[in-house]
């Protein structure tokens, strides 16, 4: 499986993401600059964290209008897996690939620490290797991770099992403790916590490994089925 790690001006978790999939999971990956790149030959798209365009206007707003996002929309519609982490999640909501928006943290401060998360849905291409209800530990690092959506959207998210991760101890005021959601189709996941920073026990947790392993396993199964 070959991953594209998208790099915008101001991305700063791109190397962590690349390291996780390339060095730790030993799969193919490229750092892909947001301009002048073609995503055709990639099997999965990773939108890393950071401060694309300095968070100008709103987090992720400017990046969401870029040419590479037009390509990502086309690939997402075809069912290609897309994972957005932190600023990547913000970009996905701004681009309309995921519902809702990320607001300033309830207590206004930037937070950077490990949080326990609950796997709410393990019947996804991103979480098949987890147990439903399992508690995993991922770092968070954000100032605007307070997930917001209106009641109607929330009902839809619940009805379609689109809530993938919730916080055990809601750190930022997110509606219904939401930490990560996917689209209805199930191939686009956005989450504020960082699975790519939880791939080595040495760094405090390797609970994030199984997220990438789930994606890779799914791709292999699909590949074998279509061969």
């Amino acid at each position: 499986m070959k991953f594209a790690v998208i790099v915008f001006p101001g991305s700063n978790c791109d190397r962590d993401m690349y390291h996780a999939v390339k060095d730790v999971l030993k799969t193919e990956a490229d750092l892909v600059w947001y301009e002048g790149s073609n995503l055709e030959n990639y099997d999965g798209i990773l939108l890393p964290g950071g401060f694309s365009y300095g968070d100008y206007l709103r987090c992720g707003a400017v990046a969401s209008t870029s040419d590479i996002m037009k390509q990502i929309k086309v690939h997402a519609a075809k069912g290609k897996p897309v994972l957005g982490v932190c600023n990547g999640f913000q970009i996905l909501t701004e681009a309309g690939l995921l519902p809702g928006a990320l607001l300033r943290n309830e207590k206004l401060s930037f937070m950077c620490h490990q949080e326990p998360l609950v796997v709410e849905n393990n019947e996804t291409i991103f979480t098949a290797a987890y147990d439903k209800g399992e508690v995993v530990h991922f770092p968070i690092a954000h100032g605007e991770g307070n997930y917001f959506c209106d009641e109607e959207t929330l009902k839809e998210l619940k009805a379609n099992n689109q809530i993938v991760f919730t916080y055990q101890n809601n750190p930022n005021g997110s509606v219904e403790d939401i930490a990560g959601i996917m689209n209805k189709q199930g191939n686009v996941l956005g989450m504020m916590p960082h699975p790519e920073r939880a791939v080595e026990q040495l760094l405090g947790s390797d609970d994030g490994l199984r997220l990438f392993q789930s994606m890779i396993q799914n791709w292999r199964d699909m590949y074998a089925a279509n061969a």
Partner: protein
Amino acid sequence: MKKVTVYITLKQGVLDPQGKAIQESLNSLGYKEVEEARVGKFIELQVEEGPDLTERVTVMCDKLLANPVIEEYRFDVEEAEAL
């Protein structure tokens, strides 16, 4: 040339922790009468004139300047002062 002034505010019902902090700060300065503060954005655009200016600015707001999930906007159009 026209000057377009866009005002963007959070929708009612969307929590505004920054506004809340400002309100509490004003209260602690003795302005107990302040019951709410909400923070928004103010954007000035210099735009070439055209017959469909209002429509174009509306689309700009919907596409980029405001996020309709959490924000509302309004804008005024006036003659730009000569530079």
